[in-house]
């Protein structure tokens, strides 16, 4: 017994619920407001069998408004179809409700997104840095932050470029 939903059918049903839907390259993306996020994800899980959250991540468009786009990838284990939900967040107010109570897997994904972008997930059980050291300053994956490298400053240490360092 399969609950598979064809792409066209999936796009129509999602479009009926979320007016801002687009289909490109074989994928359906629904853009929702952050206030509708939890309801939308619950509806996706109950009506479309999209109950497996693959990943939560974000993209930074510093020239755009909204600046941050938080992206949720959903997958149906039985039905094999996928969908994406995107939420736009303004620069000044980068907060979004956490989906961890609904999808426990979002725990570390949201921590990573917070670590990289500084987006606050309200209701997250333990929103701390996960991949970077606990006392790191800044959110490196923002486009406004430099790539770093040889001139990185950490704990006051300055590491000179490799070709100016001599050990002899």
């Amino acid at each position, binding site marked *: 017994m399969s609950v598979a939903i064809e792409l066209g059918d999936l796009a129509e049903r999602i479009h009926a619920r979320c007016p801002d839907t687009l289909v490109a390259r074989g994928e359906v993306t629904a853009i929702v407001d952050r206030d509708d996020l939890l309801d939308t994800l619950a509806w996706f899980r109950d009506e479309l069998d999209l109950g497996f959250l*693959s990943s939560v991540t974000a993209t930074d468009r510093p020239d755009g408004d909204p600046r941050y786009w938080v992206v949720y990838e959903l997958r149906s284990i039985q039905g094999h179809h996928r969908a*994406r939900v995107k939420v736009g967040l303004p620069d000044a107010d980068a907060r979004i409700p956490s989906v961890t109570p609904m999808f426990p*897997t979002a725990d570390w994904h949201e921590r990573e997104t917070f670590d990289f972008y500084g987006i606050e997930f309200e209701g997250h059980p333990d929103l701390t840095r996960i991949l970077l050291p606990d006392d790191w300053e800044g959110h490196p994956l923002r486009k406004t932050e430099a790539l770093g490298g040889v001139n990185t400053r950490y704990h006051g240490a300055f590491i000179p470029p490799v070709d100016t360092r001599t050990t002899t």
Partner: protein
Amino acid sequence: MQDIPTDRLPRDASGQIRQETMIINMGPQHPSTHGVLRLLLELDGETVVTCKPIVGYLHTGIEKNTEYRTWAQGITYVTRADYLSPFFNELGYCLAVERLLGIEAPPRAQVLRVMFNELNRISSHLVWLATGGLELGAVSIMLYGFREREVVLDIFEEVTGLRMNHNYIRIGGVIMDVNEEGERKIRRFLQEMPKRIDDYETILNDNPIWRERNMGVGVLSAADALAFGVTGPMLRSAGVAADLRKDAPYSGYETYNFDVPVRQEADAFARYLIRLAEMRESMKIVAQCLDRLEEPGPVMVEDPKVAWPAKLKVMDDGIGNDPEYLRHIMEESMESLIHHFKLVTQGIEVPEGEVYQAVESPRGELGFYVVSDGGHRPYRVKIRDPSFANLQATPTMVEGSLVADAIAAIASLDPVMGGVDR
């Protein structure tokens, strides 16, 4: 030995002997944790009360780095994320970029991709068997696992030039065709390997110590696994038949004849049996690939705006640039030289858009969320690594069991910290 007089032990207010739990730190440098994983364990005697995994000790900034390099250079970064399955990283990334470009690799390239992916699955499972056995004390299994892996790495070196982190799968195809010596080595491997897997089963399947340490250990039910986003052999050991090669096939997987082993017990022993069975299935797929390679064909897409311009060839001293091609661009055609130069230094242009492509790596769903803004560099590359999600299930698997069982449970999880931390 004298008995400790119990009237001298510290007691709490109600007169009970005071017991405290002990907080112990395991790792990040530890011979038994898989790589640089740190576990904060609260122990009551030998029983784990709470377990908190702390990751990030191998954070490399791969995702940020790809935004500053060309699309083709992204492959070299992405291949080092989950370093035990480099071909899967490359395939996921290249498939995502190809979907953005709207092209498809030629059939022969797809067969080569599938073949090397399955060989990589075998080599990754061999490392899991070797290190898992080592962590549980079966040191001979470590040597056997690495012995078999050397054969596979030899095949990789013969065809791609490198033992690890190959940069072989490119956008639009693969960089080189497999040569005769490579095919011969693969056939010999397919003849020898089944006997070795039989050896492993003979040593381990009925071994009372192996069974004691793995049966009933690290149990993770299907509901828990799905809630934590766990995929791969962990999920299939709990009875859920989810494998992206069957569910959402890519690179022609729907045309191959293979099974996906699934078990019901959801413990470490079930995962061990599944991984051994997966190695056998992978060999079946490789044999089918070798048959399909009888027909010649191009290995890189024809489109000149996308195809990697250089032609490589195996020569006496190794893999190098094809002398014919060099002569063509250096002496015959100025336009070819300019075209080659532009494509290699500036890189290809990928149309705007975003795409999520998932492949079934040895550890589970390996996903690539790639965003392009129409330029020569990726705008955002997010690697959805299976071990990152799988490790979240560690407290559920481990709490309430003994410390030694915690090690066996994490070994059966097969985390690769390069993928977790990226």
